[in-house]
């Protein structure tokens, strides 16, 4: 053992010394008697090693060349070229390597700022194509991890498959009661399979901070799409809004021990409908559930408590007794809550068919359907073209999941890369995923930029949304940007407009947007009642507030129909000035 160690020490000596003397030193070691002597020799070997390497550079090479045949019993590597770098060169090399190493580590850390807390989704199969999770999908296009930057929390749904996993809080965009009533009538297997059940809607709502408007809060849209989907005025052929309310509901799961939970199911036809009449006990359960959820989740805690008190007072006064019909009771409770809050997203929803407590996860077919739909619709990108005066124009009618559409959107942005100015047309954009907001915004900045925060009242947590590291070769970071808005611009599309406005990166042209800065969640109360509570709000780091209720004011107010022309003129003017 000691001998082996001593041999190793000898082997570590400079080759010149080693070749000439290692045999003899080993011979001496072999002649040493006893362990103490061997240990002394070991110590001597260590000192010798240090001495030869530090104080005898003149012997490293010279002696080695003189006695090349001396390394018989001591294994060593012999090189053909006796070249040996100068000590100074070796030290410089070490320093340089260390500097490069630290620089690389720093660069990696820098690029990981947005990735560290991200769970890469298990992306579902896209037709025959191989799976491309968010990061790789974007990497192939030179855009790093589109889905990643946006969601800094581990359970962030980045793709439909992830989004649809049962989560404690299932965000939804609440809809007015009248519309909700419509929703229930759509609960049919066909609707489920064709639209409501499509991963798009589910994923969108499943993504917590994903600001999906989808027109869900827009009665006209919803009704139009419901009555005739093929003639939907919106060019976006994605699952229509009528399905959203149902879909959002599917993915929730039981919430907590208070009885408040988060499931509103799509119900097959063969499920026995609920008797419409209500007794006092059930009303009591529903009111208690509503109070618990309001107190726990509503974004404004004070208002939540006030509404809870109001509900309790109404119940005590006997105001609820008249409502023996489930649907009427839901409308009544909704009205009671809104009387105080004027929050049109707050809503009690009644479903005649029971809401499952554990909704099934989306099937691979549904996920594939969504991907196919995205392929067919080119990820809702309606136009990506160069207008006169080399002004880029991108009209897209949704912010789809970046983990699925990152490539296509990146391609669209690449096609506009040489434009001198760029116009984003969000006039028909109902929102979508925050990760796509961050991905597109990435092209407009030359460094990772903080877009906004998502505050979740129920979890008392705040998540940040940042743009990604700059896209290599991108030329749009310093080009003038115009965003077209309308009163149909919803949710994530409003977020995109608002963020760019706050950052003074874009000129907004058009109408004030719809004003949706909160995201709601469906919480199951019992088999037939679900309450939708806005529980997540966007907080812009610059304004420290959001556009909830007020909408995003454009910089240049014109009718939405004239917004493009106006923006073009403004862009031309700006380009001429430059």
């Amino acid at each position, binding site marked *: 053992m000691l001998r082996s160690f001593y041999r190793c020490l000898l082997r570590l000596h400079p080759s010149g010394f080693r070749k000439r*003397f290692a045999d003899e030193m080993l011979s001496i070691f072999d002649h040493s008697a006893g362990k103490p002597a061997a240990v002394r020799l070991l110590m001597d070997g260590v000192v010798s090693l240090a001495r*030869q390497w530090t104080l005898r550079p003149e012997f490293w090479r*010279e002696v080695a060349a003189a006695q090349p045949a001396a390394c018989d019993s001591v294994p060593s590597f012999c090189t053909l070229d006796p070249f040996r770098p100068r000590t100074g060169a070796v030290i410089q090399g070490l320093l340089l390597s260390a500097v490069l190493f630290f620089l690389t580590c720093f660069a990696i850390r820098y690029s990981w700022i947005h990735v560290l807390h991200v769970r890469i989704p298990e992306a579902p199969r896209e037709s025959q194509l191989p799976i491309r999770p968010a990061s790789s999908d974007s990497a192939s296009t030179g855009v790093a991890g589109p889905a990643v930057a946006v969601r800094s929390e581990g359970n962030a749904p980045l793709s439909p498959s992830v989004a649809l996993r049962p989560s404690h809080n299932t965000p939804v965009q609440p809809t007015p009661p009248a519309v909700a009533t419509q929703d229930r009538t759509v609960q049919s297997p066909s609707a489920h399979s064709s639209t409501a059940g499509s991963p798009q809607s589910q994923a969108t709502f499943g993504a917590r901070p994903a600001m999906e408007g989808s027109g869900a809060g827009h009665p006209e849209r919803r009704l139009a799409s419901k009555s005739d989907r093929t003639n939907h005025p919106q060019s976006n052929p994605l699952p229509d809004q009528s399905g959203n309310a149902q879909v959002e509901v599917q993915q929730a799961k039981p919430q907590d021990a208070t009885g408040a939970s988060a499931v509103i199911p799509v119900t097959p036809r063969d499920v026995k409908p609920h008797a419409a009449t209500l007794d006092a006990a059930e009303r009591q359960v529903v009111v208690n559930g509503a109070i618990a959820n309001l107190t726990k989740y509503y974004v404004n805690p004070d208002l939540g408590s006030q509404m809870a008190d109001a509900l309790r007072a109404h119940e005590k006064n006997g105001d609820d007794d008249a409502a023996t019909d489930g649907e009427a009771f839901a409308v009544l409770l909704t009205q009671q809550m809104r009387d105080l809050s004027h929050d049109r997203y707050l809503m009690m929803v009644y479903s005649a068919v029971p809401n499952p407590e554990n909704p099934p996860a989306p099937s691979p077919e549904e996920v594939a359907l969504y991907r196919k739909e995205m392929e067919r619709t080119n990820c809702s990108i309606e136009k990506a073209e160069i207008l006169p005066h080399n002004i880029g124009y991108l009209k897209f009618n949704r912010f789809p999941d970046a983990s699925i559409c990152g490539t296509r959107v990146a391609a669209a942005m690449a096609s506009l890369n040489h434009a001198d100015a760029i116009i984003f047309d969000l006039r028909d954009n109902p929102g979508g995923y925050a990760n796509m907001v961050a991905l597109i915004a990435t092209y407009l900045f030359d460094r990772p930029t903080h877009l906004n925060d998502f505050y979740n009242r129920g979890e008392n947590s705040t998540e940040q949304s940042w743009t990604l590291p700059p896209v290599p070769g991108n030329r749009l970071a310093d080009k003038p940007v115009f965003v077209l808005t309308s009163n149909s611009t919803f949710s994530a599309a409003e977020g995109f407009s608002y963020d760019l406005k706050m950052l003074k990166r874009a000129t907004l042209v058009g109408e004030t947007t719809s004003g949706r800065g909160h995201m709601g969640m469906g919480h199951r109360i019992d088999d037939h009642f679900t309450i939708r509570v806005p529980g997540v709000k966007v907080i812009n780091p610059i304004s420290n507030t959001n556009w909830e209720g007020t909408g995003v004011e454009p910089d240049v107010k014109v009718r939405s129909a004239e917004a493009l022309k106006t923006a073009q003129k403004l862009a031309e003017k700006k380009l001429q000035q430059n």
Partner: protein
Amino acid sequence: MNDDTDNFLPLSPATLHILLSLAAEDLHGYGIMQEVARQSEGKYKLGPGTLYDNLQKLIQHKLVQELGRRPGDDDPRRRYYRLTSLGRGVLAAETDRLGDVVREARLRLQIAKPRRA
């Protein structure tokens, strides 16, 4: 004394002992170590690292010559070393120098004694 030898003076204890041990006969490294221990009556123990480091320098300066292996030796790995004439001259010069030092030291000590008394 001449310039050639003066350049090497004074010798370090290890070098002095090595040259001294080779003055009588050719020795291999282990033999040198044993001889050094004998000369100093065990007070100075030369490790192989120090020994070969010094031998390396002595060979380079041509104070010692490497003879190579001897076929009949107990251990074929051993190589023998011999003192060159230059080495012998350096040893002689160092011996003279040390003699002067010793003489001077004794003189000083004798002068110093009465004072202390």
